[in-house]
């Protein structure tokens, strides 16, 4: 089992979700995040005083997948999230020892 984590642009979320659904991934978990990298932040001005925001909003997406699907899923996310502009984000995968579905207690692939 693998856990694939992707940091993507908030805008691309719908596309990624649809691509994953189309591929057959049944579930995922997302959360709000802020990223720092090559992509620049922005400045705001309040009564003439500048306020620089270094971090840009990102979505953090997590998908548990079976080992065999892992590189395909990564590929699916990659394609759907790509805009070609700086700040498109990262995807990584880590090995998972165990997965359980809370409702049933099922383990492993059955838990997905």
């Amino acid at each position, binding site marked *: 089992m693998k856990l694939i984590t992707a940091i993507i642009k908030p805008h691309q979320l719908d596309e990624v979700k649809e691509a994953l659904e189309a591929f057959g991934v049944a579930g995922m978990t997302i959360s709000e995040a*802020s990223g720092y990298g090559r992509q*620049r932040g922005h400045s705001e001005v309040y009564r003439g005083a500048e306020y620089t925001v270094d971090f*840009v909003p990102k979505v953090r997406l997590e998908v548990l997948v079976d080992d065999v699907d892992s590189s395909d899923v990564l590929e699916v996310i990659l394609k759907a999230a790509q805009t070609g502009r700086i700040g498109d984000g990262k995807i990584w995968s880590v090995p998972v020892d165990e997965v359980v579905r809370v409702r049933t207690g099922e383990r492993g692939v059955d838990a997905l």
Partner: protein
Amino acid sequence: MVLAMSAITFVAADTPFTDSGNTAWVLAAAALVLFMTPGLALFYGGMVRTKSVLNMMMMSFITMGTVGTVWVLWGYSETFGNDVGAGLLGNPFEHFGLSGVLDAIYGYVPADAATGTAAAGGIPGGAFVAFQVVFAIIAVALVSGAIADRAKFVTWTVFTVIWATLVYFPAAHWVFAFNGFAAETGGWIANKAEGLFLGGAGAYDFAGGTAIHINAGVAGLALAILLRKRVGWPKEPMRPHNLTLVMIGAGILWFGWFGFNAGSALSAGTLAAGVWVNTLAATCTAMLGWLITEKIRDGHATSLGAASGVVAGLVAITPACATVSPWGALVVGLAAGVGCALAVGLKFRFGFDDSLDVVGVHLVGGLIGTLLIGFLADATNSPTGTAGLSMNDGLFFGGGFGQLWSQTLGAGAVLIYSFVVTFIIGWVLHKTMGFTVPEEDEVAGIDLLEHAETAYDLGAFTGGSRHVSSGVVAERTRQVVADEPSSKEEASA
């Protein structure tokens, strides 16, 4: 205006004096109406997305700045100066900078001893100026709801000045400038216009159903057609980001509207009191009408629906509040509540992005109220009637089609004029200055790109600095966002 009653002749009193009670009410009413525009800013601001709430509110606020200034300079004079011909426009130079206005006393009408009705008017020129400027401001601000999230702020600013000058002031002159009140000769809709096609009877528009709501509503339609749609509309859902703001805004609008309508009596007596009651009655049934429509159609009565129903009812009763009975007001409200609740769907059918339903609420509501007068005008039980003033009956009360015809003509004239001229103004501005922001700016957030601000920073982090920032407080020496197109482009992602 009380003066919308065509039967009134304005008597120049031998020794005119100000009635402190009437003046107190008009000054208070003017403040109430002034408060409506910040209320509108909240009502509109709550309905857009988080990233454009400030821009939305700024469109209302800047209108206060520009139209208020212009009103003092030439707007008052263009609206209430002596007519320059055919009832189409006041002389903009007569009272330029309000010269010769503050020391005047307007609308002196002797008390009617028989009925105990208080004299109308007896108010200082300044009070009339005050009451009318806040009307002008909100009329212009209303338009902004149709083009939420995407209008270039500087172009909107210019638009407010031009639109007020070319569309609102003339229309207000037509409808609100009564012969012999603030000037010798006034506008063609307000006054008996024998020679014109109205055929002898003025249209009744007590507090601005035509000059303000139909006018602003149709102007919103023109701009919504002219400007590009919001990115993603109508596919993407764009829900109100803060309904508590919408509710506060609706509350303020409701509160202020009593100044709008009952203040239009320009006196504190039977007429104003009756108008107050009608204004409430219509709002109540409009809210119920909207909510029942929602409950039947969608399965739920929503808070946005309640707020919208309130505004729809207020819009519709605005022209009618003095000429229908309380029963009539209940009917006008119900019709507006149901009618507008159904009308807000039209934009999806016809494909124009009237973002905050200026058409569905103000144009449709204004038309409902203006036309229903033709049916429901009640010379006996209306505030006008109970105040001892004469007026025509509507169709349902035996008055025939006469008044309905006048109402239709008045409404139609404003509607067509406003649509055409607004479209031209919008088109010229669009070709010259550009009226919309780049799509990527809209997506990144118009607040950020146009105003270099974001509305909220509610992060729970209790540190001195927000976790997503690391800024330097310093006097600005450069223009960060604008100077760095790349950052702008990236920010949009």
